[in-house]
């Protein structure tokens, strides 16, 4: 039976080469664009190293604060280390909470006496290395003792190591960062800028710089963000309620100076954090989802109408065959199933083509497709198979193929199956 679908589909393809090409192109184009939209979303939310735990992350990228004296006014932005520690790092429900600098800053590094180059610097605590899974090719991350002591140690990427020392096994070597000597603690594989939270080219303990001294609003706001790693997604609610309790306690404490923290429902999970750009507004996840849904509907319905019209025309040429099948006892349901299944063979072929095209495009056009919003770095968003291809990618592609196929052949098939046998044998569809 299935073999027959293939044979029939193949024969159709050969008989009507141009029309088949048009149909395949239309289907491939639809799947191509749909998969680009899927991938654009996936690079933001699907896990890949070093952010393999994305589904267990809760982020507090920004914080907001107001004061009784400011009226409706508020200050919005990254927070101070004190705030991050008191409100989040002391939580007990999560597995770990890391505090790091809110944005990467292009910073000069060089060897003594040599010209400097700008690298994207990230400042972190030691917990950072437990929350994110970097792959070390030499050395190891800085530990709690080094962090607490504020030692000038650094983790650098492979390419920075190569540019500085022309090799990668450089554990223990010294270089200058902002003209201060730092020792390499470890070397990691390069990180794509798409790993928006973990990305950097050099990581140092934030205790080793003056960063934490940049604060305002009475040391409540500063330059830091934090990420909570839950043991399980199921703990999110428990963590949120612990955060809420901490917030009330802490607000009572800072309230003596008139201050009050506004959380805007933070912490946000990965999906919400990916669209949280302004510190003074809570992002609307539902609206973003609705928008994507509308895009998918347009990307499916427009080609489906197209393809329906072509399927219809093709069936019209086969109407006497349909008559014969019906005369020999094929039921309407069987007939519909047959037409849809035949069509599916073609749709799947075209869908595969579309998927391949979208992956190729994602590789070649990464800097166009995944260009990052509100980012400081000029480095392009590098992609690889780990980032682009997940089991779910294929799942989505398959699902959209089925949907498109049903939409594009359902009505014509239903229509054809309702043709009366006499008419069909006579070559008339209506």
């Amino acid at each position, binding site marked *: 039976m299935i073999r027959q679908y293939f044979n029939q589909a193949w024969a159709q393809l050969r008989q009507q080469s141009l029309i088949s090409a*048009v149909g395949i192109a*239309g289907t491939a184009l639809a799947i191509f664009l749909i998969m*680009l939209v899927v991938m654009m979303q996936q690079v933001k939310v699907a896990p890949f190293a070093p952010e393999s735990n994305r589904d267990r992350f809760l982020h507090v990228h920004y914080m907001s604060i107001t004061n009784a004296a400011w009226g409706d006014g508020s200050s919005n932005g990254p927070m101070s280390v004190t705030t991050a520690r008191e409100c989040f790092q002391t939580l007990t429900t999560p597995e770990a909470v890391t505090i790091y600098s809110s944005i990467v800053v*292009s910073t*000069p590094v060089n060897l003594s006496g040599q*010209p400097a180059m700008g690298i994207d610097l990230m400042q972190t605590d030691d917990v950072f290395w437990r929350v994110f899974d970097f792959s070390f090719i030499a050395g190891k991350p800085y530990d709690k003792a080094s962090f607490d002591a504020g030692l000038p140690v650094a983790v650098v990427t492979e390419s920075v190591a190569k540019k500085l020392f022309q090799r990668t096994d450089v554990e223990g070597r010294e270089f200058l960062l902002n003209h201060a000597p730092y020792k390499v603690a470890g070397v990691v594989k390069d990180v794509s800028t798409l790993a928006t939270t973990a990305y950097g080219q050099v990581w140092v303990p934030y205790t080793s710089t003056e960063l934490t001294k940049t604060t305002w609003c009475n040391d409540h706001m500063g330059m830091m963000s934090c990420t909570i790693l839950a043991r399980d997604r199921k703990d999110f609610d428990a963590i949120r309620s612990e955060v809420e309790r901490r917030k009330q306690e802490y607000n009572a404490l800072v309230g003596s100076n008139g201050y009050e923290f506004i959380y805007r429902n933070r912490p946000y999970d990965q999906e919400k954090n990916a669209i949280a750009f302004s510190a003074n507004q809570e992002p609307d996840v539902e609206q973003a989802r609705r928008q994507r849904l509308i895009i998918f509907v347009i990307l499916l319905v427009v080609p489906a109408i197209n393809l329906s019209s072509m399927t*219809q025309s093709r069936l019209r040429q086969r109407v006497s065959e349909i008559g014969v099948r019906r005369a020999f006892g094929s039921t309407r349901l069987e007939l519909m199933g047959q037409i849809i299944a035949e069509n599916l063979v073609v749709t799947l072929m075209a869908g595969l083509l579309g998927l391949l095209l979208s992956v190729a495009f994602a590789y070649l056009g990464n800097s*166009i497709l995944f*260009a990052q919003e*509100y980012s400081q770095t000029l480095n392009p968003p590098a992609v690889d198979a780990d980032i682009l291809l997940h089991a779910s990618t294929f799942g989505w592609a398959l699902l959209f193929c089925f949907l498109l196929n049903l939409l594009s052949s359902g009505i014509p098939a239903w229509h054809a199956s309702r043709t009366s046998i006499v008419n069909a044998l006579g070559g008339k569809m209506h």
Partner: protein
Amino acid sequence: MTKKLFIQIKNEWRSNLWLALELLLVSVVMWYVVDYLYTRAATYLEPRGFDIEHCYLIELGELTSKSPDYVPDKTQEETHADISELLERLRRRPEVEAVSLSQNSYPYNGSSSTGDVRYDTLRSPEWTIRRMVTPDFVRVFRYQGTRGETPEQLAEMLDRNEFLASDNLYNRRYGVRLTDLVGKPFQLFGDTTRSYKLGAALQVVRYSDFEEARASYCFLFKQSFYYVGLELCVRVREGHDHDFIANLKKDSESQFRIGNLFISEIRSFKDIRRNFQQARTNVVRDYVMGMGFLLLNIFLGLLGTFWFRTQQRRSEIALHKAHGATDRAVFCRLLTEGLLLLAVVTPIALLLDWSLANAELNAWRNGTTLEWDRLLICAAISLLLMATMIVVGIGIPARRAMRIQPAEALHEE
């Protein structure tokens, strides 16, 4: 001929319904996309009020006690003097035209400070950007006065402690242009004990390429005290951009290490603009891709459908030709069929466009979503684009139909 075509379209209503449905849906979505791109382009093309060509941002760093070169116990005054010296050294470079310091002021800046500009009972809008700058800032970004004041003249005004403000501060609320208030005393920074003289009204300085001039407000006042957190911007003489960053970085160790100061990064404003506006340009990218997708779909749809039609109507076309129709007439007849379908759905599409605009579901500009000229221009553009695709899509099968030999086709029949 049109009447006959209509009858034919009616007779094949089933397959034409698919086409019409597609054309209708695409018409509306296309209009939406064109409307979006049109408004963005119109805003983009408004005068910006500043010029970032040949401009660079120099980020300063300060040594910490971790560095062997660190000079301890620097007072704020000493740092101020060090920065002044660094500015002087930059000015002495032959390729540098102007150097300025500022606070949350440079264009395409994610951070901004706001302030209130009061004249009598008139108050500036809530979102009026306060730009604290050294006088040369207006020379770096080439601000212009509404009465033709040059950047140099504006810089002198700032130097005299006069302030500058964009012409439109009181426009929307009071219908007053600031040009008419030049020289009058104003109150700034919420300080009612002092007054500041308005030196000149500025041609509106936009927040970004995607923000309309009508909703961009700012005022400028002189920044007198220097500290490391200020932004250092330079304008390079025309034709000297080449390797400016690399050359300055090369000299930065030997010439620009003053006290605890050093140059930590140099960025061109082109890069800053790109980063700042990426979110906006990404949306434009998505819409352009969507538009391409829709157009390709119309092309494919019409190509496929009309390929079938010319096959089915082989004998009909042959008969036409036998009765004296020229190749051109056959070609035009098929094209007209497609265009007529588009013409039929257009009024319905227009109605839907209008309802979308009326429901404020499309792009905003000039404080509204529904402007008649814009609605019609955008509908016309999308109609034209679709018509082009129809002509190309039908053109291919129609060309084939032209080549039908009446004798052969009728013989087969």
